[in-house]
């Protein structure tokens, strides 16, 4: 089996680790890109194809196939922001984002959707974006779908996904098969740990190699602290070097000079760099409108084993409730399942002792259903705000109001109904005050009584979006439709932080397609 990254290193790719550079090293490039995830890597591919000298800077460590040993604890603690302990400031919503070369794409679950047409239309009408009509975006999505081998998943869904399919069919709800970005997938189910076979067409094995083949330089283990300005021009950026594990600061600095800078540190990460830089923010828009697709979940014990840890983690979805009350109406949600690995299941239960042990004995029978709330489309869904802690690290304030709670309760009910319709023996919402219910009738009356409150409902997000939002009106946005910063002419922001609302679908292809379009425009401008 060939490991594309190992081979590239052998043939001489320029890959630097920050801790190996002397203190106060200065690097130079035409374009310096901050962050190597969906946005940064796509930008690197397009800009290096145009002949520009690209430097790709990543805070996380370079980990690739040889490190991906399907070990939940090692993977979670090394590949994710804050070792998977990132949360909203009140602790109510757990936040998962990648922190490694390839960013969140190295750990994502390969589920692929184009930006829904409702979302594109809303952005055009309500946020005044140019170039984002369905027709204008289609060629960019097509190009990325080809480049990343995005295809409908033809293997039968695993047991966990089958529960969603079966339950929806029994109730007459829609249930569709997903598109995935894989090539020769072994159907193992470990996408969230770093794909052990390189089948997942993440940035690590696609756009990053493509850029490195064109003389791009990758610098890992370097945390970008801030930009330094001269008038409205960014002159340099300053990085702190991290140790070989990309964990502790070494105390050394690296400085980078470039003609143009691209910020692609992801939602939370990109606004944080600008906040630390004290970048101009005349209309107080920076860090605001950060969206999460807040997720709640219900855990079912099925009568037959479903082995939610084996097989493509997500292959079936239902959009039955996503747009039902209109784009700007009541909260809508997308239904999917989450892979069921033992450590994650134990942690999400917020339980312990014999009760947890009993749940864990049912591991092979456990189905985990999730609902992703579409946030940002309604005036009562303004999103959260990124702030800096005293030590300069970012944290997200995200208020859960009645609008969201209503959507979450509806989702608890809907998922429970679907699980019972698929033959569940018991269902338990992931909520501190819930227990195992043994019938839909019982669940329905009990869920109606559950307090919808912070730290009672178990909530998470793996889709952080916004915080440097796009718009043509500088009073309401940070960048324009091409990702160009309204106040800083040599800065573009090319990642998921520019979405003016959440997507209403898993966001990776929305980022790839949008950044392909924006980076192509930038390449033209710079060459």
């Amino acid at each position, binding site marked *: *089996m060939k*490991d594309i990254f190992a081979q590239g290193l052998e043939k001489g790719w320029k890959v630097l680790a920050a801790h190996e550079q002397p203190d106060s090293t200065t690097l130079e490039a035409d374009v310096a890109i901050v962050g190597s995830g969906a946005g940064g890597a796509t930008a690197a591919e397009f800009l290096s194809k145009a002949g520009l000298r690209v430097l790709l800077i990543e805070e996380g460590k370079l980990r690739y*196939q*040889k*490190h*991906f*040993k*399907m070990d*939940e*604890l*090692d993977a*979670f*603690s090394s590949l994710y922001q*804050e*070792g*998977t*302990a990132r*949360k909203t*400031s*009140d*602790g109510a919503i*757990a936040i998962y984002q990648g922190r490694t070369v390839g960013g969140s794409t190295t750990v994502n679950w390969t589920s692929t959707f184009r930006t829904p047409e409702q979302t594109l239309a809303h952005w055009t009408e309500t946020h005044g974006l140019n170039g984002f009509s369905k027709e204008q975006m289609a060629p960019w999505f097509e190009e990325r779908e080809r480049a990343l081998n995005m295809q409908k998943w033809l293997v039968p869904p695993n047991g966990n996904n089958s529960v969603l399919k079966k339950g929806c069919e029994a109730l007459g709800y829609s249930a569709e098969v997903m598109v995935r970005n894989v090539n020769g997938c072994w159907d*193992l189910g470990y996408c969230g740990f770093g794909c*052990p076979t390189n089948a997942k067409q993440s940035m690590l094995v696609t756009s990053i190699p493509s850029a490195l083949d064109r003389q791009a330089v990758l610098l890992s283990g370097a945390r970008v602290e801030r930009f330094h300005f001269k008038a409205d021009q960014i002159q340099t950026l300053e990085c702190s070097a991290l140790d070989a594990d990309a*964990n*502790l*600061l070494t105390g050394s600095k690296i400085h980078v000079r470039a003609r143009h800078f691209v910020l692609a540190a992801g939602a939370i990460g990109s606004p944080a760099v600008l906040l630390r830089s004290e970048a101009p923010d005349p209309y107080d828009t920076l860090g605001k409108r950060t969206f999460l697709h807040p997720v709640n979940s219900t855990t079912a014990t099925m009568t037959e*084993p479903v*082995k939610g*840890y*084996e097989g493509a983690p997500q292959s079936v979805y239902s959009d039955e409730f996503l747009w039902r009350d209109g784009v700007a109406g009541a909260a809508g949600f997308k239904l999917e399942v*989450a892979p069921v*690995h*033992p*450590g*994650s299941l*134990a*942690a*999400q239960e*917020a*339980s*312990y*002792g*014999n*009760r*947890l*042990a009993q749940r*864990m*004995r049912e*591991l*092979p029978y456990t189905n985990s259903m999730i609902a992703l709330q579409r946030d940002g489309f309604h005036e009562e869904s303004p999103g959260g705000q990124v702030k800096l*802690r005293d*030590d300069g*690290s970012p*944290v997200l304030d995200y208020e859960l109001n009645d609008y969201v709670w209503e959507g979450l309760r509806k989702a608890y009910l809907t998922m429970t109904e679907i699980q019972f319709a698929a033959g569940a023996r018991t269902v338990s919402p992931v909520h*501190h005050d819930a227990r195992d219910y043994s019938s839909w009738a019982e669940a329905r009356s009990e869920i109606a009584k559950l307090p919808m409150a*912070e*730290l009672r409902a*178990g909530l*998470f997000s793996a889709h952080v979006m916004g915080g440097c939002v796009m718009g043509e009106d500088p009073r309401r946005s940070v960048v324009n439709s091409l990702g160009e910063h309204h106040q800083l002419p040599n800065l573009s922001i090319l990642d998921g932080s520019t979405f003016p609302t959440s997507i209403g679908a898993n966001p990776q292809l929305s980022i790839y397609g949008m950044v392909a379009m924006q980076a192509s425009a930038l390449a033209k401008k710079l060459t």
Partner: protein
Amino acid sequence: MMRSSPVSKSSRRSFLKAGLMGSAALSFGSALSVISGCSSKPVSYPLNASDKAVYRFLNKEDVSMVAALIPVIAGDSFPAAPEQQRSAIDQTLPRIDLFLYRLGDFNRKEIRQLFDLLHMRVARGLTTGVWQDWSEAPAEDIAAFMQSWKHSSLALFNNAHNAFTDIIGFAWYSNPDVSGPLGYSGVTDTLRAALPQFQQT
């Protein structure tokens, strides 16, 4: 998924204050129902000098506290035989240590504060109802304070409860020796033979 962040910023400086203030309202005590079900005899966990080198986050007091918490979190998935108990804890402590070590600067500091607070006898007694050394605390008492933290009206305690159950529960059940018998496939022999990363030493 993980929900292991400790105490949030707003509550950080007030940890001690909240802990002490909150104590009146949080009537802890051994009268609470025994939910852990494990033996009330604590697993005493003296740290050998040679063990110290293994840990990058945990100190001696942490080890004794975490070793007392593991059986409570594990419940009846914790082995019954004393020699197996010792080895179960031996395996789990370095996993917890690695996890905490990699939490990032901010969380590491938060957890350090929480742990240090719980090592101070009076603060520990007031916030948990556990007055004796961790190594002598009955499992029932530990289970009781976990339960009251879970249902406390103070977010601070909810968060601390979640941090303990998340981190220790995650480290315990993600161990292939624990998850294998539950039916988890993990790295099969076929994969071990087929994938290059398992052939390297």
